[in-house]
């Protein structure tokens, strides 16, 4: 008889606090239940409070791996992008969140891990191995990410340049990147407001982009980031960067 193949949890042996922050975190039964509850609640909230409309819903992939990217204007963005995704992907859909905002203190990290299912990326001193880890997990598991290549919320309403980190996740792979444009988030919940206002949100989902032939190096990553940014701008009717 052949031996069975066991695959222990990839975050095995970490104390709870470290597990929240781990890029290899996997959810158990409690996590799954909380993710489903949280995201069902958010779906209802977005529909009622922000009358969220999704244009191009057919472009949302039904299976992992994929990455959703969009312009970043508010904390509502991640909710509006992840909520329309299928419920059965809940455990494998990871919003990529700023480590310094969402994973520094334990209660917030617990919320980010248990409700949002977010994974941290540290904006200052970002370890390149973290991006490698994310790239590996994307294909191996496979899983899906929601991320904002601008790296931070716009303070003015203007879209910023896309950082090339996104390119390092997908260069030379068949993983689709789905460009989206979220309209209305800056008006609803700009960074200087404490609470969101009931403004209408419209999410436009574009056709998936793939980069199998782009080299997995700095030039390739920059090229990918540029292409994705141009597509997001086009979807939002934002003039191209000059």
């Amino acid at each position, binding site marked *: 008889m052949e031996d069975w193949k*066991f*695959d222990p*949890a990839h975050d095995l042996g970490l104390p709870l606090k470290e597990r929240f922050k781990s890029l290899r975190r*996997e959810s158990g039964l409690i996590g799954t239940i909380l993710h489903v509850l949280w995201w069902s609640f958010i779906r209802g909230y977005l529909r009622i409070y922000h009358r969220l409309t999704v244009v191009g819903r057919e472009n949302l992939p039904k299976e992992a791996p994929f990455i959703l990217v969009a312009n970043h204007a508010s904390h509502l963005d991640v909710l509006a992008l992840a909520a329309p995704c299928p419920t059965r992907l809940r455990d494998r859909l990871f919003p990529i969140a700023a480590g310094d905002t969402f994973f520094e203190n334990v209660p917030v990290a617990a919320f980010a891990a248990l409700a949002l299912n977010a994974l941290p990326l540290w904006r200052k001193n970002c370890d390149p191995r973290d991006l490698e880890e994310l790239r590996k997990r994307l294909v191996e598991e496979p899983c899906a990410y929601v991320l904002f290549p601008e790296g931070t919320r716009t303070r003015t309403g203007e879209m910023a340049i896309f950082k090339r980190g996104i390119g390092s996740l997908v260069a030379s792979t068949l993983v689709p990147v789905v460009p989206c444009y979220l309209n209305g988030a800056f008006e609803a919940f700009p960074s200087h407001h404490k609470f969101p206002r009931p403004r209408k949100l419209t999410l436009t989902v574009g056709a998936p982009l793939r980069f199998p032939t782009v080299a997995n190096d700095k030039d390739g990553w920059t090229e990918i980031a540029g292409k994705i940014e141009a597509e997001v701008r086009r979807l939002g009717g934002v003039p191209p960067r000059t």
Partner: protein
Amino acid sequence: MIRERLIGASHAFDHPVTVWITAGIGAALVVALLIIASLSATGVVKDPFRKELWKRTLAWAVMAPLLIGPVLLGAAWTIAGVAVLSLACYSEFARATGLFREKLVSAVVVLGILCVGFAAFDHWYGFFVALFPLTVIVIAAVAILPDNPKGYLQRVALGVLAFMLFGSSLAHVSYMANDWNYRPIVLMLLLGVQLNDVFAFISGKLLGRRKIVPHTSPNKTVAGHLGALVLTTPLVATIAHFIFRGTDLDRPHWLILLGVLVSVSGQMGDLMLSSIKRDLGIKDMGVMIPGHGGVLDRVNSILLAAPAVFHYVGFFVGFGLDQPTRILTGP
């Protein structure tokens, strides 16, 4: 009567054996801390053994009240405590084996654990024993649903073993709480298996030379196991004599056999977990308890001992035969 048994903390020390064991454990912990302190101070034991000794003993000082407290407080607390322990054990097992990725099987095992706790609480022996085959049936059925026959046997087998060990088996401790006099019996079992481990650890360190199962657990020695057997058996037999005085069990040979049963099943439980960890290629099941690893690393020895002792004592004396049954579901 039912209320008194379930939450009557004022009865905690009705039985003299309960007083002895509780006082004994308290005293033993204080003495152990003093001995280790003096050994460290005089430099008789050296690092890393000294550090390990400290860590383990301090963990005991926290764990002992957590284990004994619910037993003293009442049957309801005992049953709830066992259920929490079962879930913690299952969580560690599922994460270590990868079974946690099978959400349906996991959900059924958790449901089974909750049901078996309920059956014990309700004092409904029929449901208590029925839950094993019933849970197995449901696990076998839900494991079909993902329509992925590759790995079917593995996920069903892991689910069944998990429910057997952490649901059915551990819940025998809960069911004991249906006896009016459950406190000394449960404490005897807890004390027996845990001291058994301590005896094995100490006699192994002092006398151990020949490995018993080097491929499974390189640190376990024949001397450790014999030492534990020799020390645990009379201890359990003596305590049992005072608990079961005047019953059919209160005969020297039956009492000694009970002691042997506790020691051997305790040690087998320990080696069983070693085998599981070896098979999985991991060192500890978790990180909950400093110096001990996970919850499962600590309660492993009770997993096999609980049903063994339950049915052995049940054969001679029975549990809660004079207590009302099906207190919630009954007519």
